[in-house]
């Protein structure tokens, strides 16, 4: 039985582990990546881009956390995937061919964010990828798109990637900005909050200046976008607000991005209570002041519980680590309360910029509710039109459309269509998104073979709790 098991070794998971170890606990940290860092500090130990100006100082800040993860009290296991987590905190781990089940008193989910789905016509063509994928290739392998490259969408990460590409000498044929008109005006009331975190604000302005100086073709107020080609991307076509006609540009790579959302696959499958964040336009698990879910002993830290950014994710990790230590009696109640208060004030300052960023980069409806001909479910190839037709036939929620169309039943288990389908159904039925709901999910979260499963269940006989929820299917259906 482990004191505390932490899933994810991004800033939230690393700081949770470091904090728990400080209070004398022996945390187990698992992450599917081969090295620590999460998304923001991905490949920080192994990146071939050793010149620090290229990825930027904010990236190299992660070194301090990674160093402290070497603490001998911390059992850090890379390349290990979590395929199951039960309400009794039995955790299924898979490393190579080895599956095992472990049990924990406290679980901290620090599994982070994913990019918001960006369904446009042609987004399944080879050559169309996400901006995050471009950044992962850059950080981990120093692999970059060949010209001509088009980047499209909105949000800080898109700008950051453009700046990082400029610094390594990758030409950008065009940056198609889908930020709708009027967003700066709408963001204005939130500016005082943003000014409580001037560092982040200044960084954004610096990126914009860098892009302008480099003469990147920055096309604003893009209102429609298509990826075109036969078997692979050949062209990107777009329209701007208030202008007729389409413009096109040849492209071999199109990188899309419109912000990040909490990756709630595990918390949804657990059946944690979730709420719709109307400002971030995303689901998030409902958390209390210690970041605990409504399930005993399970907390969420970092972007998996609502998008807060890397700095705040680290602070939340500390708070969750403290909470685990407190729950296990490793720290006197008074001291825990005092320390938690200190972390919460720092968090409030750090996240004061979120309302401004969330408003400024809030994707317009057409990017979330695509036209009928656009594929929504990439795996099973279901279009937005089919989902709307299902609504006409009386489908109220995503589990019904799943049964009738297979939408969400493919290998990605609805990760890339779930949000879109919920929003489409809410819109078509004129009901709230809370009434519409989300997919019912089940483990395994990741493909696991029958052989691996059998080995794990053998091992689980040694555990008192037995093999958790319903038996997972062997293939990623």
């Amino acid at each position, binding site marked *: 039985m482990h004191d505390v098991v932490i899933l994810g070794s991004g800033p939230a998971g690393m700081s949770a582990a470091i904090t728990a170890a400080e209070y004398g606990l022996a945390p187990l940290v698992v992450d599917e990546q081969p090295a620590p860092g999460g998304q923001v500090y991905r490949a920080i130990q192994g990146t071939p881009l050793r*010149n620090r100006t290229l990825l930027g100082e904010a990236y190299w800040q992660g070194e301090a956390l990674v160093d402290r993860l070497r603490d001998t009290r911390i059992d850090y296991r890379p390349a290990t995937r979590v395929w199951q987590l039960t309400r009794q905190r039995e955790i299924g781990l898979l490393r190579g061919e080895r599956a095992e089940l472990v049990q924990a008193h406290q679980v901290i989910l620090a599994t982070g964010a994913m990019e918001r789905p960006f369904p446009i016509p042609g987004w399944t063509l080879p050559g169309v990828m996400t901006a995050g994928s471009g950044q992962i290739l850059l950080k981990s392998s120093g692999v970059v798109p060949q010209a001509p490259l088009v980047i499209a969408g909105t949000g800080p990460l898109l700008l950051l990637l453009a700046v990082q590409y400029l610094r390594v000498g990758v030409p950008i044929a065009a940056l198609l900005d889908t930020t709708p008109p009027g967003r700066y005006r709408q963001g204005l009331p939130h500016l005082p909050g943003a000014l409580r975190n001037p560092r982040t604000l200044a960084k954004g302005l610096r990126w914009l200046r860098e892009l302008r100086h480099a003469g990147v073709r920055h096309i604003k107020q893009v209102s429609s976008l298509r990826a075109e080609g036969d078997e692979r991307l050949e062209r990107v076509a777009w329209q701007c607000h208030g202008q007729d006609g389409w413009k096109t540009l040849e492209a071999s790579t199109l990188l899309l991005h419109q912000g990040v959302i909490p990756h709630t696959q595990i918390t949804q499958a657990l059946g944690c209570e979730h709420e719709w964040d109307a400002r971030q336009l995303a689901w998030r698990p409902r958390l209390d002041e210690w970041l605990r879910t409504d399930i005993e002993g399970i907390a969420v830290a970092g972007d998996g519980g609502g998008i807060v950014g890397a700095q705040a994710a680290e602070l939340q990790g500390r708070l969750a680590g403290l909470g685990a230590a407190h729950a296990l009696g490793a720290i006197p109640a008074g001291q825990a309360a005092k320390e938690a208060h200190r972390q919460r004030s720092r968090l409030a300052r750090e996240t004061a910029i979120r309302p401004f960023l969330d408003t400024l980069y809030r994707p317009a409806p057409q990017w979330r509710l695509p036209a009928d001909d656009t594929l929504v479910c990439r795996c099973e190839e279901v279009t937005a039109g089919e989902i709307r037709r299902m609504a006409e036939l009386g489908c109220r929620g995503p589990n019904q459309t799943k049964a009738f169309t297979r939408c969400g039943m493919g290998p990605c288990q609805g990760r890339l269509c779930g949000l879109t389908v919920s929003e489409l159904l809410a819109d078509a039925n004129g009901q709230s998104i809370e009434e519409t709901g989300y997919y019912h999910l089940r483990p395994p979260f990741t493909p696991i073979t029958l052989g691996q499963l059998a080995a794990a269940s053998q091992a689980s006989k040694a555990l008192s709790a037995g093999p958790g929820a319903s038996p997972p299917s062997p293939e990623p259906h």
Partner: protein
Amino acid sequence: MFQRLSLPDMPRGSEVSFRFGEQELQAREGDSVAAALLASDVLACRSTPVSGSPRAPYCMMGVCFECLVEVDGVPNVQACQVPVRDGMRIRPQHGTEGGR
């Protein structure tokens, strides 16, 4: 589609060889299988069970499952989540080959 940067102070990781279908390809140690394929100009790594449309890695972080390939005889492996190794045999996964 993709290429490897060569900047002055970049370490050149050691080279590994792998097969993709009939092709003999090279990559750098530390690359994921998906990165290795993209850097070798491989366009599509699978086709869909529904329409047979070609697909390539999309998210590179394990969420989209567009990168499913067969690695050393094991189907449904997410190419973006597995490091490439010397001598690996990778096969594209067409249509319903991975089961459905």
